[in-house]
């Protein structure tokens, strides 16, 4: 059953059309990846889903409900979390405050504590750095914090925008491992990546986006073998 259905959306930035009719769906429990080159519209797709970008036409159904062009703070309440490109840690806030911001809509202190423990389960390092300022951590730690912060919302759908960006390959592997594990724990994941090879490796399904359009889709393992994709994105 699809948890997210994106039907034929078109999004404009100023006068420029960034998305020219994107169709994507994500089933519950899947890892779906969206690959494509810089500027192809990957991030815009995520932004359109979470409401950061204004969609002109189409429809976005989350858990069967229309969420298109709802304010961001409302869509996120429905159970989707969006980890933005470049991590976007609140740099002068402490790790703890960052995590608390993730749980902004929760007023139950105990619930917050419980969720925090779950996050620490995934990222033990964060527990040690609780009072440190977010901006002083390394890139990999920041990415973990960003994911941890999103997990504080207890999302059903986790959207990750280029989590491997600018990280050392070893860290990248760790991050992908964590993504896999989160999925195993029952979180549906929509992953946007430029690192197509690794993304397709862990994904159940994948979409290739080019110039604001989906040009290919299929199972992750199939796409990885596709020669066209090899030429365009795996080199």
């Amino acid at each position, binding site marked *: 059953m699809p948890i997210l259905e994106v039907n034929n959306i078109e999004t404009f930035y*100023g006068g420029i059309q960034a998305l020219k009719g994107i169709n994507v769906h994500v089933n519950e429990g899947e890892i779906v990846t969206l690959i494509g080159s*810089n*500027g192809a519209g990957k991030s815009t797709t995520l932004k359109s889903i979470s409401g950061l970008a204004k969609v002109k036409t189409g429809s976005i159904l989350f858990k069967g409900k229309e969420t298109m062009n709802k304010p961001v703070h409302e869509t996120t309440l429905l159970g989707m979390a969006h980890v933005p490109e470049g991590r976007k840690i609140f740099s002068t806030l402490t790790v703890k405050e960052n995590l608390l911001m993730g749980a902004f809509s929760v007023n139950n202190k105990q619930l917050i504590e419980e969720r925090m423990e779950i996050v620490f389960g995934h990222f033990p390092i964060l527990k040690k750095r609780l009072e440190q300022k977010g901006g002083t951590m390394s890139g990999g730690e920041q990415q973990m914090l960003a994911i941890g912060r999103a997990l504080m919302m207890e999302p059903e759908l986790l959207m990750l925008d280029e989590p491997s960006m*600018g990280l050392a390959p070893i860290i*990248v592997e760790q991050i992908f491992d964590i993504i896999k594990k989160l999925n195993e724990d029952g979180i549906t994941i929509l992953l946007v990546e430029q*690192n197509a*090879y690794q993304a397709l490796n862990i994904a159940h399904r994948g979409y290739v986006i*080019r*110039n604001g359009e989906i040009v290919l889709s299929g199972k992750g393992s199939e796409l990885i073998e596709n020669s066209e994709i090899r030429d365009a994105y795996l*080199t």
Partner: protein
Amino acid sequence: MSILEVTNLTKKFGGLTANQDVTMNIEAGSITAVIGPNGAGKTTFFNMITGVYQPTSGDIKLEGKSLLGLKPDEVAKRGISRTFQNIRLFGEMSVIENVLVGMHIGLKTGLLGIFLNLPTTKKEELLAEKEAYRLLEHFELAPFLNEKACNLSYGAQRKLEIARALATKPKLLLLDEPAAGMNPAETRELTEIIKNMGKEFNVSVLLIEHDMKLVMEISEHIFVLDHGEKIAEGNPEEIRTNTKVIEAYLGSGAVQTV
């Protein structure tokens, strides 16, 4: 002969080291690439060459003359021009005006010439305008000459930025991720333009780029930065097979395909 010599360049921001002892030589007339993961200090490196930042230590020499202590505009006058990672056009100005600003260094008219609208000023302006138009034609931007720069498409904005940088008639052109945001067709077009730049504009090119296909195709020499340090250099073939580079940047996944 090398056009740019960088020796032991180091930049520290407070406790953070952005570049550590980077040394590189860039051959005149060549196309050279700097690659590396995000945050490896590539853009900081560019910023030091162009005078936006002053290095903590080390030296930068253009044709044997040090650039240390010069302001960005003085560096530009010496003959280094650049584009920016996040496009920095003069959005409200027209396309051709953007290129004309690039020609600023070449225009000799003084205040008096402007006030009196001397014949020499008029002639100089006309020549500059024609020259600018020729550049636009070269980048296939001529149809948009009176358009506001901010109304161009992303790819066209990237090209305009390069055209504007070339308008300063640089000896060395620094391109910061010129293909970012371009679709494959545009990237191919750009690849051709950069390839021929040396011949047509008599300029050496140093570029930062993530598109490995483009980098491998056009670069004669490649430097790899990681954590602010140079970890490798060589021709594309050498870089492709360098284990350090694969570990730090290309990733084992990429190796299979590259």
